[in-house]
C-alpha cells in the first residue's frame, strides 16, 4: 500500500554525507527520515561474501556487494556486467567507472579511509592560475568544518606539523588520534622518495589508531580496508545507522527515490520513491537533502523534470550534471629485485602530496603519488601458479612476486569542464528509470600533466625504488571520487548550490557532498564532502530554528 510519511528533515541516501547531516539534525531536536535505495546488510555477510570469492575476483572491490535489481551499481567482474548500469561514453569513459555501491552505508563500506584536506590554493585555481573556478569561500571558512569532520569520522594523523597537510596552515583542533605505523613498504617508499625531492607523508585516515574511538575497535592491520574492514576499525557510515535510529531517526531501506516534487512557490514538497514491488510512495517534510552521491543526485534531479522544471529540479543554470570530476589515475606496476613488502598495516597509509602544488598549475594539473599497501599474496600466488611452477620453485616465486612487486599510482587534479556531463540514458534500469549516461574526457590540462610531469616522475620514482620492470596503464582510470555534478558557486547563473550546498532555485533543498565541489584537488575527496555536509547541516538546523 502506498504510504505518505512526514518528517522535519528528509534525507535521501545513507552514505557518510547523509548520515552526518542526519545525526546533527537529530542532535538539534528535529525529526529525520532517511530513504535508502539499497539493502541493509550485516558486516559479517560482506566479509563472508568476500572470503567466498574466487581469488581472481578478490581485487574487485564491489564483488562482495551484489546489487539488488532495484538499486543497481556498477559491477566490474566481467565486461558485460561493467556495461550493465553506468552508460559511459567519451574518450576517457574508463576513467569514470565509479565503484560506489548502493547499500545502506554507501561507498564508505569499501573506501580506503584516506582523508587529505584540500589546500588554500586548491580553492583558488582561477585567481591564482587562471584555470578552473574559485570556490565560493576561502580555506579559512572550510577549516573548522574539516576539523569537525575529522572528529566525527575519527581521523588519525601525525602530530608533527611538518608532517601535516596542508603545509603552513593552522589547524583549529589536533587529529583525535595519532598516526598509524608504517609497514616496510611504506617506509621504504618514504626513504626513497625523499632522495628525489618527493615527501611521502603519513596519511590522515579514518581508522582507529591504537585506541578505540566512537565505539569502534582499534585497527589491527587486517589489510582489508577495501573491500570491507571486518572489525569496523575504519569508519564507515554503516556504523552510524544504529546510532541514528537510537536517536529517533527513521531509515527506510530498499526505497529508491525517483522524483522530487516542487510546488508553485518553488519549494520542495515531496519525494517519491519505489519499493522493491515497484509500488510508489511519497514522503514530505520541511527540508529535503539529496545525499545520493555525485552521480545519483544529479540523476535524480534530472529525472524530476516536468513542466515546472523543464530541465530538471534545481537546474535553471543548466549546470546539473555538468562539470563531472574525479582524479584521473595512472598506475605503474613495478617489479624490483629487492623485497619491498607491501601488505603490512592498512591498504593505504601514506601519499606524496607536495607534487600537487606549484605555479606549474597554470599549465598542467598537480597530482598525488602513492603506493598501494595491499598484501600482494593473492596476486603473487595466482601469477606464480600461472607460470606452471611447483614445489620449491613455486613457493619461491610466490614469495618473490608478493614481496618484490608494487603498484604505484598517480592521481591528477581535475578541472570542472562543462562538457563532462551526466545526462539521462535512453537505457532503463529494472524499475524503468533512466540509467545515468556520462560523457568523460580528462581534458588537456590532465593530459599535459601526464606527458610533461607525472609520468616522467612516476618512472623516476619507480627507478629510485629499484624497479627492473615498469608497466604503466595505457589509459586513465577512475579514483572513485565523484565530484562536480551539482557545482557550488555564488552566482546562480553558472552554479547549482550556494556556499551551504543549498540549491539556488529551491531554498528548502540541499545537495551536499561531492557534487557540490567546485574543483577536485589531487587528494582523496571524501573529507571535503564530509566538511561540506557539516556546513550544510549547520545551515539546515539554522533554517529550521528560524523558519
Amino acid at each position, binding site marked *: 500500500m502506498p504510504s505518505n510519511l512526514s518528517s522535519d528533515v528528509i534525507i535521501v541516501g545513507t552514505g557518510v554525507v547523509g548520515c552526518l547531516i542526519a545525526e546533527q539534525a537529530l542532535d538539534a531536536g528535529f525529526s529525520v527520515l532517511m530513504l535508502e535505495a539499497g539493502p541493509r546488510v550485516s558486516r559479517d555477510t560482506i*566479509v563472508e561474501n*568476500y*572470503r*567466498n*570469492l*574466487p*581469488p*581472481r575476483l578478490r581485487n574487485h572491490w564491489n564483488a562482495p556487494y551484489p546489487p539488488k535489481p532495484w538499486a543497481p551499481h556498477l559491477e566490474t567482474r566481467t565486461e558485460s556486467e561493467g556495461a550493465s548500469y553506468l552508460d559511459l561514453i567519451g574518450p576517457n569513459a574508463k576513467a569514470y567507472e565509479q565503484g560506489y555501491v548502493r547499500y545502506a552505508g554507501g561507498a564508505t563500506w569499501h573506501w580506503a579511509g584516506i582523508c587529505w584536506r584540500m589546500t588554500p590554493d586548491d580553492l583558488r585555481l582561477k585567481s591564482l592560475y587562471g584555470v578552473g573556478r574559485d570556490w565560493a569561500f576561502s580555506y579559512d571558512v572550510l577549516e573548522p568544518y574539516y576539523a569537525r569532520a575529522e572528529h566525527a569520522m575519527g581521523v588519525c594523523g601525525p602530530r608533527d606539523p611538518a608532517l601535516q597537510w596542508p603545509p603552513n596552515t593552522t589547524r583549529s583542533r589536533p587529529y583525535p588520534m595519532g598516526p598509524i*605505523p*608504517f*609497514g*616496510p613498504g*611504506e*617506509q*621504504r617508499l618514504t626513504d626513497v622518495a625523499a632522495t628525489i625531492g618527493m615527501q611521502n607523508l603519513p596519511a590522515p585516515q579514518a581508522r*582507529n*589508531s*591504537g*585506541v578505540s574511538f566512537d565505539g569502534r*575497535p*582499534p*585497527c*589491527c*592491520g*587486517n*589489510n*582489508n580496508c577495501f573491500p*570491507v574492514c*571486518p*572489525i569496523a576499525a575504519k569508519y564507515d557510515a554503516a556504523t552510524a545507522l544504529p546510532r541514528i535510529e537510537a536517536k529517533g531517526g527513521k531509515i527506510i531501506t530498499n526505497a529508491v527515490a525517483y522524483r522530487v516534487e516542487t510546488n508553485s512557490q518553488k519549494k520542495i514538497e515531496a519525494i517519491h520513491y519505489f519499493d522493491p514491488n515497484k509500488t510508489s510512495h511519497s514522503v514530505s517534510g520541511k527540508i529535503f537533502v539529496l545525499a545520493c552521491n555525485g552521480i545519483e543526485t544529479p540523476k535524480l534531479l534530472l529525472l524530476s523534470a516536468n513542466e515546472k522544471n523543464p530541465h530538471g529540479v534545481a537546474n535553471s543554470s543548466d549546470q546539473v550534471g555538468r562539470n563531472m570530476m574525479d582524479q584521473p589515475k595512472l598506475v605503474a606496476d613495478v617489479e624490483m629485485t629487492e*623485497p*619491498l*613488502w607491501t*601488505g*603490512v*598495516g592498512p591498504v593505504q597509509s601514506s601519499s606524496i602530496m607536495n607534487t600537487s602544488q606549484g605555479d606549474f598549475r597554470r599549465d598542467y594539473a598537480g597530482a598525488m603519488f602513492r603506493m598501494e599497501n*595491499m*598484501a*600482494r*599474496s*593473492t596476486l*603473487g*600466488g*595466482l601469477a*606464480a*601458479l600461472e607460470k*606452471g611452477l*611447483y*614445489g*620449491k*620453485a*613455486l*613457493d*619461491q616465486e*610466490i*614469495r*618473490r612476486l*608478493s*614481496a*618484490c612487486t608494487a603498484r604505484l599510482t598517480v592521481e591528477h587534479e581535475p578541472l570542472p569542464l562543462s562538457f563532462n556531463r551526466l545526462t539521462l540514458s535512453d537505457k532503463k534500469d529494472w524499475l524503468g528509470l533512466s540509467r545515468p549516461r556520462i560523457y568523460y574526457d580528462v581534458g588537456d590540462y590532465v593530459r599535459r600533466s601526464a606527458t610533461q610531469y607525472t609520468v616522467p616522475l612516476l618512472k623516476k620514482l619507480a627507478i629510485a625504488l629499484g624497479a627492473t620492470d615498469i608497466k604503466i596503464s595505457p589509459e586513465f582510470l577512475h579514483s572513485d571520487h565523484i565530484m562536480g555534478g551539482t557545482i557550488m558557486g555564488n552566482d546562480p547563473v553558472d552554479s547549482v548550490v550556494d556556499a551551504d550546498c543549498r540549491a539556488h532555485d529551491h531554498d528548502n533543498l540541499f545537495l551536499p557532498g561531492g557534487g557540490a565541489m567546485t574543483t577536485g584537488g589531487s587528494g582523496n575527496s571524501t573529507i571535503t564532502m564530509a566538511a561540506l555536509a557539516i556546513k550544510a547541516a549547520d545551515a539546515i538546523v539554522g533554517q529550521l530554528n528560524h523558519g
Partner: protein
Amino acid sequence: MRSPCTKLKINRRRLLLGMSALATAASFAQSRGLAESSGPPSLTDPVSHFMFVSRVLVPHELDRSVGHRIHGAFSDVEEDFDNKIKELQDLIIKTSPVDVEHFMPTLTDIKQKNTAMKIISAWYSGVVNGKSKDHTIGFESSLMYKVTNDVMTIPSYAKSAPNGWNSTAVSLLNMPSF
C-alpha cells in the same frame, strides 16, 4: 588390497607423511565404519587416494578436511576424477619419486600433467575452476597465503595487536615452514 605405500622407496619424511596420511585415513574410515557398522575398507576411500597423491605434489602439511573439499569439487567438475587420481597414484608407486621436483618430469602424458597441476593449483589458490563457475573451497587455508604469512596478513585476518606492526623488512630467503 595392497597398500599404495608398500612399493614406495621415497625419502624418510615423505614416507612418514605418507604413512600418517594412510593411518589418518584408516582411523577416519574405522571410526566411520564403527559408527555406520558397514562401509568401504579404508583404502578404497577416494579422499585417501587423493591425499596420498596430493602429499607428493605439494610438499607441505595438508589438511585432510580441505583435501576432502578439493576432492569433492574436482569430482563435480572433472569427469572420471578418481580414475585420474588412480593413474597418478600408480605412477607414484611405480616411480617412487623423491619429491615433486622429481615426479613432475616423469609425467609425459599431458593430461596427467594437467591433472597434477590442477591439484597443486587448488591447494595453493583455494579454488577449483569449473566450466561455468569457480568453486571456492578455502580461504585462509590456501597455501599461497602461507608462503608470505611471516610478513603479510591473510587479508581480513588480524596480523597483530593494535598498531603492532613495524617497518622491518624480512629476507626473501626466510621461507616459513608450513
